[in-house]
């Protein structure tokens, strides 16, 4: 079976190369970029093969930076990024690039304390800890938020991501929104000049570091905290409510955030009452004007399927799907792709 399939694939490639648009057998659509949505994207590509067997997807999860670079260089048919592209990078594109949001996820505040009590944090406290101003677990700012919890006179060991990542982008985007000091001193990026703390590589590195260090506090993707059975905190949102991070509260953030026409949005600190404040979406990047008509048509068909049917698979993989109002707006945008 396998060699046959492979041969068929190579044949398709040869045909593609030889006769450009008239590939009849199987088409290969190439994409590259973000690692955060990789599990759901590969699930989509698998499922979509049953819907349309004539298309195969090849997705390289090389990171958002690589995804943006490759779509700009037009070496892939679509890119993927955990952060919206900057104006500067968009200006380099040879055509109009569209941002298609797909799913969203949350960063949670995970910690390691004796007895692992349930904790609550607000914006000021989180910013204070990550700026290195709140140094001890029994700091009054933390204890007043958590009456009844006995917090030790222990140093807080701050853990952050050392590798560039969309998780860090969401985290620093949140801190920049709620703390003017953070905005001016550190700013928002996939990796920043951290004022304090130690760096762990990858979600697994940070999770490992927190689990192994008594008194540690850091941020990881929601899925990692759930899978590693780490305690994570409720965070006070813009409406003044303490919210537990989960799929519902992330979708609530998507539903209430202000989303501009070009979909280059940020949903951190969303105004909704049920919205978890530290979350973010991930995007596919496609050109509005597709060069290859046949390929473009197949890509558009896939995108429509992803928004209509693919979104339903998100929950199983711990991603928050787009709320319906946003799904409709995204579908409208996909219709605008010119073939």
């Amino acid at each position, binding site marked *: 079976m396998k060699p046959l399939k492979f041969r068929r694939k190579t044949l398709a490639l040869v045909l593609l190369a030889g006769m450009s648009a008239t590939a009849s057998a199987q088409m290969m659509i190439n994409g590259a970029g973000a690692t955060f949505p990789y599990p759901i994207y590969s699930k989509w590509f698998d499922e979509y093969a049953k819907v349309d067997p004539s298309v195969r997807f090849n997705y390289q999860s090389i990171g958002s930076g690589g995804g943006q670079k490759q779509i700009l260089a037009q070496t892939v048919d679509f890119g993927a990024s955990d952060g919206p*592209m900057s104006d500067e990078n968009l200006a380099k594109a040879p055509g109009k690039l569209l941002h298609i949001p797909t799913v969203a996820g949350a960063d949670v505040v995970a910690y390691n304390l004796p007895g692992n009590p349930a904790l609550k944090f607000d914006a000021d406290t989180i910013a204070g800890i990550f700026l290195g101003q709140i140094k001890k677990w029994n700091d009054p700012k933390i204890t007043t938020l958590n009456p009844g919890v006995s917090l030790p006179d222990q140093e807080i060991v701050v853990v952050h991501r050392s590798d*560039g990542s969309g998780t860090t982008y969401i985290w620093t985007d949140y801190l920049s929104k709620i703390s003017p000091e953070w905005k001016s001193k550190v*700013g928002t990026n996939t990796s920043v*000049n951290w004022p304090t703390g*130690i760096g762990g590589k990858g979600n697994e590195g940070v999770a490992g570091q927190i689990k192994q*260090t008594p008194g540690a506090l850091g941020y990881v993707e929601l899925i990692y905290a759930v899978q590693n059975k780490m305690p994570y905190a409720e965070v006070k949102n813009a409406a003044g409510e303490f919210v537990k991070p989960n799929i519902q509260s992330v979708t609530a953030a998507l539903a209430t955030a202000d989303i501009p026409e070009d979909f280059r949005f940020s949903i951190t600190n969303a105004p909704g009452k049920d919205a978890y404040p530290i979350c973010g979406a991930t995007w596919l990047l496609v050109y509005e004007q597709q060069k290859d008509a046949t390929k473009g048509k197949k890509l558009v068909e896939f995108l429509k399927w992803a928004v209509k049917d693919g979104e339903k698979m998100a929950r199983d993989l711990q991603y928050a799907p787009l709320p319906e109002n946003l799904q409709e707006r995204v579908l409208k945008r996909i219709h605008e792709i010119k073939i």
Partner: protein
Amino acid sequence: MEIATPPAAASLAPRSAAQAMVPPSRFGDKAFEWLTLAMAMAVVLLVILIGWQLWRGSSLAVQKFGFHFLTTSTWDPVTEQFGALPFIYGTLVSSFIALLIAVPLSVATAVYLTELAPLWIRQPIVSLIEMLAAIPSVILGLWGIFVMIPWLRDYPFPLLKRFFGWTPFFSGPIYGTSMLAGGIIIAIMILPIITSVSREILRSVPNLQREAAYALGATRWEVTRIAVLSYARKGLFGAVILGLGRALGETMAVTMVIGNTPQIAASLFKPGYTLASVIANEFTEATTDIYLQALFEIGLVLFGVTILVNLIAQLLLKTLTTTSTTRAVQ
């Protein structure tokens, strides 16, 4: 051609036989020479191409930051201020710690295996050491996070602090992830290569050396020290340099335990950062040109540091061997 003449002149053999003897073709020799030359040149070319590519990839950053890149310590992708000093420092210090731990261990192991160990135990130990070399870096790193660091934090580090806490090297809070932990994990990774090479070198010491020393009435320790170790000194130094080369470029395992904080601190309990680690960490998500170029320049610096350290080691080796020969002559 000159070589070809004497046998021809000397031959007094019958003509027919001489005619039948076709002069051997030198084509094979020449072809072999050219082939090996091409191979050797390919390596040189590869090194030059890597250097050139790194230079080309970082030209913008080199222009923008100039010499400051090597002397400043801010690494801020948001404001696009880049300085490599803490990374250079971290690379050198962690490699130095690694050598400090690995060299005595490796050389002692090699001496034991070639000079002292009973024959039946040698092969199992050698196989075990070679297995250590086969462990993937990322596995060692995870082991570092989950096993080594908690243990270091709870036992050896507090001891070090108690006895040497008065020096700046072992002061300050203990988190576990630290420059020292990074050095220790590199030491584990370069142990096998230094041990294997040292063992081969000690094995190649001629037995005559040992026998001569024994004949002079030397004890086992004296034989090992005078006849074996000092004879093999040059080779052992080469083994250490091989290990150092690996230490400087070691990435994954170090990244997972060193703490990844670009700072220059005297205390080895504080987290550090290495050149190779920052590339591995930030390359995939570097979106702006100057950021990417700065990472390329880090690669260039690593390239330069490796060459420089190797050159210094060669020089050291030269002075070492010349002083030892003069001593021998005296």
